């Protein structure tokens, strides 16, 4: 029975091997764009790398880039769950329903959906209060524009993007009553060619500030080519375009959250939660404001950042009217999270309609 003992020896070794090398927890990440977008997905991947570094061999991570919305997303999420992932982060709004549907099929797997609003026993949501950063951008944009035209590249007309437009507009308008927002919707998070075309069209229309809510650096490149246009890094610092055209940025810092949630799974204390953190807790931060911004404007912007961080200022503080002229917030009143999360209206002064 020599053969049998060899076989069992091999099996034993193999078994020990897997025990010795297997991580305690496997974490999956689903990305909407490539890691090399140097925007949204890049920062999520930085968060993943931080998890790997923090936990070392105890945690294994897997990821999939450029996952299309719809059936593709569900297939990728299911595959990750079947590969033994214990915790899966789905990092784009459009993964909401695929995540919930996969969560039903795999009740023992924990899911975390970024920027969504649907919860389940094993599905949490998390997002940053990016509108806080937009307020600071709006302030700088309103002060710096010479043509009084600010171009805004929107991805999809969802509350998160609309909120950003409103926040930026309110704060630009506050310091520059003549300011005007031109908004282009391109219906994608990541398509450098479309983003570049949209930026060029806005610049051709006279905009000298480009705000983007899309993931690539193509609008930065378009601003740089135009020469006299400023831009802001979106989701990531986009530091390659410093100090001009990129004069500041909103940086998403997911690492602490990803580490905390992975720790919760390791400890068995994971619970379904809805997290929405801003500049204060550090999920959103403001990238370096370069010297292309006048010193006084920079000081005001930094003061606003600090006021938002310590809670003394809320970017949506009344009086604010809706676009149709009806009252939204009375003087001194601040917006509640429910309204902000479902925001489907422009504030007074923005022209154009939100596509249905």
């Amino acid at each position: 029975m020599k053969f049998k003992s060899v076989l069992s020896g091999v099996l034993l070794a193999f078994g020990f091997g897997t025990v010795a090398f297997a991580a305690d927890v496997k974490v999956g990440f689903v990305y909407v764009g490539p890691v090399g977008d140097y925007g949204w997905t890049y920062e999520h991947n930085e968060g993943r790398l931080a998890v790997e570094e923090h936990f070392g061999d105890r945690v294994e991570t897997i990821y999939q880039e450029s996952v299309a919305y719809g059936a593709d997303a569900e297939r990728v999420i299911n595959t990750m769950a079947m590969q033994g992932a214990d915790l899966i982060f789905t990092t784009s709004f459009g993964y909401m329903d695929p995540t919930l549907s996969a969560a039903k099929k795999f009740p023992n797997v924990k899911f975390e959906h970024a920027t969504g609003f649907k919860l389940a026993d094993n599905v949490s949501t998390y997002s940053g209060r990016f509108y806080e950063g937009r307020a600071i951008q709006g302030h700088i944009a309103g002060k710096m524009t010479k043509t009084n035209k600010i171009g805004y590249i929107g991805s999809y007309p969802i509350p998160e993007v609309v909120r950003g437009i409103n926040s930026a507009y309110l704060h630009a308008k506050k310091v520059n009553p003549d300011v005007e927002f031109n908004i282009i919707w391109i219906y994608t998070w990541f398509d450098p060619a479309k983003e570049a075309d949209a930026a060029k069209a806005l610049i051709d229309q006279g905009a000298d500030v480009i705000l983007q809510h899309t993931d690539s650096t193509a609008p930065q490149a378009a601003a740089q080519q135009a020469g006299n246009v400023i831009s802001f890094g979106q989701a990531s610092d986009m530091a390659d375009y410093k100090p001009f055209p990129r004069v500041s940025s909103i940086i998403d810092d997911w690492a602490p959250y990803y580490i905390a949630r992975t720790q919760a799974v390791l400890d068995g204390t994971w619970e379904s939660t809805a997290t929405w953190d801003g500049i204060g807790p550090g999920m959103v931060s403001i990238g370096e404001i370069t010297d292309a911004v006048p010193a006084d404007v920079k000081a005001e912007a930094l003061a606003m950042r600090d006021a938002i961080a310590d809670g003394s200022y809320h970017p949506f503080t009344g009086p604010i009217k809706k676009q149709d002229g009806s009252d939204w917030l009375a003087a001194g009143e601040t917006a509640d999270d429910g309204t902000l999360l479902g925001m489907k209206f422009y504030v007074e002064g923005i022209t154009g309609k939100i596509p249905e």
Partner: protein
Amino acid sequence: MVIFGIDLVLLISALMISATPVLLAAVGEAVVEKSGVLNLGVEGMMITGAVIGFIFAVNTQIPIYGFICAAIAGALLSVLFAVLTQYIMSNQVATGLGLTMVGLGLSALIGKPYEGIKSPTLSKIEIPILSDIPILGPMIFSHDAIVYFSVILVATVAYVINRTHVGLVLRAVGENQEAAHALGYKVVRIRFLAIMFGGAAAGIGGAYISLARVPQWTEGMTAGAGWIALAIVVFASWKPWRVLLGAYLFGGITVLQLNLQAIGVAIPVEILSMSPYLVTIVVLVGISLFGHHTAPGSLARPFHASQ
């Protein structure tokens, strides 16, 4: 020249840039189809040109080297198609589709380290005297070299096809391969060269996206431009100058819809976004219903000298 809040000078200048990739690919494909070959791999050759052009431009910091290498890469990829369809007699439609898939996959693989990198860009060349003409100058005569090149290429192709012996032979091969063969023309060799020309043109078109229009590399960045180029060849009834018209029309609608959105015209965004494709479909249907059927007689038919 501002009409409805849109500056016509800027609009036309922008549409020429926007149309150039499609124009280059389409004029190359027109030559291929004139020789009687249908190469559906335009998208694959464009994306290969985009990535190769980007890699060489970044490493040498000289954009024009990027374009030259993109042309070579596009032509080399098309050789694969030419060998398969002309010598091994594989099905042209299936091989062309395969070429697109190969190009998309291969470019994503070799382009991975180049994502998020900046490339050197082409400088504008203001043509002396002509660029000083009011309105027309800034509109047409202050572009980068590739925009001029694309127009010159169209003119050259139109001249060669319609006015020269070489063009006559090319058309003969495309219209009636047996007759051309009987006259002693090397059908396969001529088609082989036409396919390579198409590949090179598509490669330059792709590189224009990654080096001038965006300028960045990301996988899948041609985003269907190759298919639009194929549609434009049919739209143009295989005539080079009409290819130019078709490409500029398509580019024009693309740029116009963005400008209309930017100034806040009250047309639903969804309709504006799909308008370039919608117009292309409508025109194609119109041509097949009412137009003269001018497709080359031997288009997509296999040829072997023994037949």
